């Protein structure tokens, strides 16, 4: 059982150690983070393909500290460990000279520990314990960014915290319905309260993954938080964790079937997330902010895929999860090296650096093609599977997905063209290639994007398809080239259309950064965009306004209750005493009259009671 605690304890202890290291020995915290992530990777590799369980009962009411390593959790842990090791290497160079280094590495490692814990947990409360504990490090990691980052950190904390509370209620409900909190023993039908429980758990899962409407902290964090955080958490860890749990509840805890209304809810959320987020990504003029909107949009594909409840869609969704984690963290890392070498991520101040930073550019090109679904890269294959599932469930979902792909390709053409190609921007004259330790993680990730595409049977047969198991796959094997020629043709059409659209845009507006202005400033759309840019539609702001209204109403109630004690009671008391006082005016005749009346009443009472 000790082996299972290692992936939690090693990073946790290393993280606490790093937090305790003072500024003078900051080099130590770099050593700590490198060794801890390396050890963690070794352990994850050794543990993968093993089946282990730990179980320590704690209370009578089902709180059992239990962990379970099996194929799915082992795979997620392996992926998490891989990203942690690569990004740790990257950060050591990137973060050099930045403030709060020990905190950054400390939170980094604690995030790793908690993520491992959440993945391994086999008891819903234990899972929630690790899962919600991530909130703290999330807050810390964003808050150590720039000066106003604490506002974004608060926003992230509140959004994720609120959805985690929904999940807490969902877990309570699931435990009540199933009679146990042990995840491997829960198999509930989606009927009645089961639906409510599923929705509550789903809110937690998709919020962690960053889907709409729980997304709005991510673009803000892209600007405020340290960049490796973006590559590590919103791009990789949170997607892996959120989609892992979504898959767990859809496949194991509940039995999501095609045609159930929750399946349609999931697909709708997925489709809306794809479209709206990519629309926002399209018009961004900042490298990191643009990527962050794609981090939201891409999660829509995974949710759509899993929401189809068809084997092809689920395999596609899970494959997309790992693919996205690869190319999105790769893209963020290229963004980081651009930021490090040029000092900016504002696209208007970039241009033509492709020749100055050829390796970064090549990595960008591969990962950008992967996210745009260009064959034979990994993104192409997972998207095809999702399209297949979506089309089977309804053309509208497919249409949303394919439109999303068009806009994704268009926005990456814009990004790549305006940052790496075109005329060299004056301020970038002396730009050089990023240092080697930063390039290594990017190269590894880009190579994996190619590997997972060209030899897609490797990840599909070893990692993804065993998650569903042979029974659920009905003998299908989704490795190899897509079988539906219509879908492949459509994808090709869309990519060509995106390229044509781009060059037409560049030609008509005269600059790469304005390549999509004809969409941005189209009638109707331009007003919507204008409002969106002013955060008119930010669900967080709307939620805050609702909370404010509730608070005002509550405060009004409270003041009215206080008025009852402070004013009304006092008035009544005074009125009462005042009238009594009048009866005691000191006049002999008044007192005599009172006595007579009193005596009369006594006589009357005696007469009638006898």
């Amino acid at each position: 059982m000790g082996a299972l605690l290692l992936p939690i304890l090693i990073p946790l202890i290393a993280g606490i150690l790093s937090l305790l290291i003072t500024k003078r020995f900051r080099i130590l915290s770099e050593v700590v983070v490198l060794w801890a992530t390396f050890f963690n990777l070794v352990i994850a590799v050794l543990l993968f393909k093993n089946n282990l369980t730990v179980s320590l009962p704690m209370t009578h009411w089902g709180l059992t500290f239990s962990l379970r390593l099996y194929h799915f959790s082992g795979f997620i842990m392996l992926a998490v460990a891989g990203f942690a090791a690569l990004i740790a290497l990257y950060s050591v160079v990137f973060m050099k000279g930045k403030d709060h280094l020990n905190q950054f590495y400390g939170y980094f490692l604690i995030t790793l520990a908690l993520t491992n814990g959440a993945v391994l947990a086999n008891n819903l409360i234990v899972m929630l314990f690790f899962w919600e504990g991530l909130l703290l490090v999330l807050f810390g990691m964003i808050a150590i960014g720039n000066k106003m980052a604490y506002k974004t950190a608060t926003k992230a904390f509140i959004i994720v915290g609120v959805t985690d509370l929904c999940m807490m209620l969902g877990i309570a409900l699931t435990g009540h319905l199933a009679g146990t909190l042990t995840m491997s023993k829960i198999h509930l039908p989606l009927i009645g309260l089961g639906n409510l429980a599923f929705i509550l758990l789903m809110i937690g899962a998709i919020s962690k993954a960053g889907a709409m409407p729980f997304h709005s902290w991510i673009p803000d964090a892209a600007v405020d938080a340290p960049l490796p955080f973006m590559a590590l958490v919103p791009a990789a860890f949170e997607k892996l964790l959120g989609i892992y749990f979504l898959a767990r509840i859809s496949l194991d805890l509940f039995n999501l079937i095609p045609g159930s209304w929750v399946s349609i809810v999931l697909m709708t959320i997925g489709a809306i997330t794809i479209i709206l987020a990519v629309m926002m990504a399209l018009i961004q003029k900042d490298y990191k902010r643009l990527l962050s909107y794609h981090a939201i949009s891409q999660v829509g594909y995974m949710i759509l895929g899993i929401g189809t409840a068809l084997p092809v869609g689920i395999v596609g969704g899970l494959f997309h999860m790992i693919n996205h984690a690869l190319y999105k963290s790769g893209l963020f890392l290229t963004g980081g090296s651009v930021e490090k070498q040029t000092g900016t991520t504002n696209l208007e101040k970039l241009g033509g650096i492709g020749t100055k930073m050829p390796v970064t550019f090549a990595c960008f090109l591969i990962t950008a093609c992967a996210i745009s679904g260009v064959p034979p890269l990994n993104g192409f294959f997972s998207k095809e599977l999702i399209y297949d599932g979506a089309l089977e469930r309804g053309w509208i979902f497919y249409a949303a997905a394919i439109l999303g792909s068009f806009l994704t390709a268009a926005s990456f053409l814009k990004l790549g063209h305006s940052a790496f190609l075109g005329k060299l921007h004056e301020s970038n004259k002396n730009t050089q290639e990023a240092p080697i330790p930063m390039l290594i993680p990017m190269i590894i990730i880009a190579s994996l994007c190619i590997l997972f595409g060209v030899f897609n049977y490797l990840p599909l047969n070893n990692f993804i398809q065993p998650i569903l198991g042979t029974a659920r796959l009905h003998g299908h094997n989704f490795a190899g080239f897509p079988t539906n020629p219509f879908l492949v043709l459509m994808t090709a059409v869309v990519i060509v259309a995106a390229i044509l659209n781009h060059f037409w845009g560049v030609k008509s507006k005269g600059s790469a950064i304005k390549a999509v202005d004809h969409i941005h400033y189209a009638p109707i759309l331009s007003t919507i965009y204008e409002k969106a840019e002013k955060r008119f539609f930010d669900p967080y702001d709307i939620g805050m306004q609702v909370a404010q209204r509730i608070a005002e109403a509550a405060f009004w109630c409270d003041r009215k209750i206080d008025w009852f004690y402070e004013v009304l009671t006092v008035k009544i008391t005074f009125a009462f005493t005042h009238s009594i006082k009048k009866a005691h005016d000191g006049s002999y005749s008044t007192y005599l009259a009172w006595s007579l009346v009193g005596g009369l009443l006594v006589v009357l009472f005696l007469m009638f009671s006898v």
Partner: protein
Amino acid sequence: MEYSCTLLNAIFVPIIGAFILPLAGRVSAVIRNTIAFGLIAASLIFSLKMLPAVSAGQTLVINKQFAFGLNFVLVADPLAVFMASISSFLSTIILFYSFGYISHYENQNEYYFMVVLFLGAMMGLIFSANLVLLYIFWEITAITSWRLIGFFREKNHVLRADKAFLLTAFGAITMLIGFVSLYQQAGSFDLSAIKASAQIHPIANFAVMLILFGILSKSATLPFHTWLPDAGVAPSPVTALLHAAILVKIGVYVFARIFVATVTPAQFWQTAVPVIAAVSAIVSAGAALMETDLKRLIAYSTVSQIGFIFFGLSVGNSLAIAGGLLYILMHGIAKAGLFLCAGIIEQNTKTKDITKLGGLINTMPVTAISFLLCAFSVMGIPPFGGFFSKYMVFAGAIGAQKYWISLVFLIGAFMTILYLFRAFNLIFLGEAKMTHAKEGSLSMVTSVAILGALSLLSGLTVYYPSKFVEMTVSHMLGVKF
């Protein structure tokens, strides 16, 4: 009977000892402070000494008979010892904090006298198993808290103290009528006799209602809560004592003692009390979101959290009751920490208006971190203690099939996150609006750091309190797990 001496000491050492303090204060302030600390610490030690015995399943009873069914009964069962340990422990820390805080003010003799007497009365109330005895201690706490709220003697403060006294005393008198109606039914004020009789005849709803008036007014639940934010004018350690450690927990404790451990009120109350608690939790959470006075804000937060405790205790599910009890512990630690932090801020910046504060994390790092740790616990974020209690309350309520009320409480939990973060950001982050603010004195900072650390530790080592609570619930309900 070897523990009976311990039990009596836990109550009467502080009560009798309190009267020495003004005399000691005439000799030397240091001696007085040391004795005061010793008295409360003794009470804590005596309470803790009973823990092993009750954990082993023993219940200690002291019984002296008088006429008219009045008897002097003290019972140390798991529930009482649990509560006594929490109250005396928090009081110890608060008293330690007071050394730094109150040294700036006059009338210190009175202060220490009242605080120690207050705790003694609380201990008496906890161990009383006779309703008249309980009522006497109840009113002693009311009188001492009246003086402590108006401690600074400003006219406005005294009025607020009067308000608190009048509201709680009104509740106490209606509660006494309720007690009398229980007496008529059972022929005794002894809780064990009432328990025996209630198993034959369920108690009248009228009596339940009257007793609830007393409980709700003491625990500051809607619609009897407005005295609590007003009581924020008291010295900060006193507000911590009132809001976190002692006063508001009295109502909750008596609820557990009478309506969970002794009699089972009609089914109707398992919905009525949660509804009252839910309204209370939401309204006060909303008020906390609007409030700009730090101490009033935390006071509203207390009202809101007390709603969660009542929710847990009242739905009639063993898990929810366990959650409610655990909540008393976790909330006590965290809320005491928040109030003591507020005291440091108030004393060093001379303002309680959070809109006038900002950026204090740079000058008061320990206070800031302690505040944040305690706030996380109140929000119910793991690995802090508040997470487990909040989860258990929700899970128990779901188990009792209170789905809708749980959803309402979920909104209350959302708003908890909002108002605590709003307060933290306005006070500690952002632009520093005052540069002269400095960290509090050593005893004050140590106290809040201990409470902040405990908020975290109580979550990491939740196994031990939850085991004890499990045993307590099993004893209260008379069922074996």
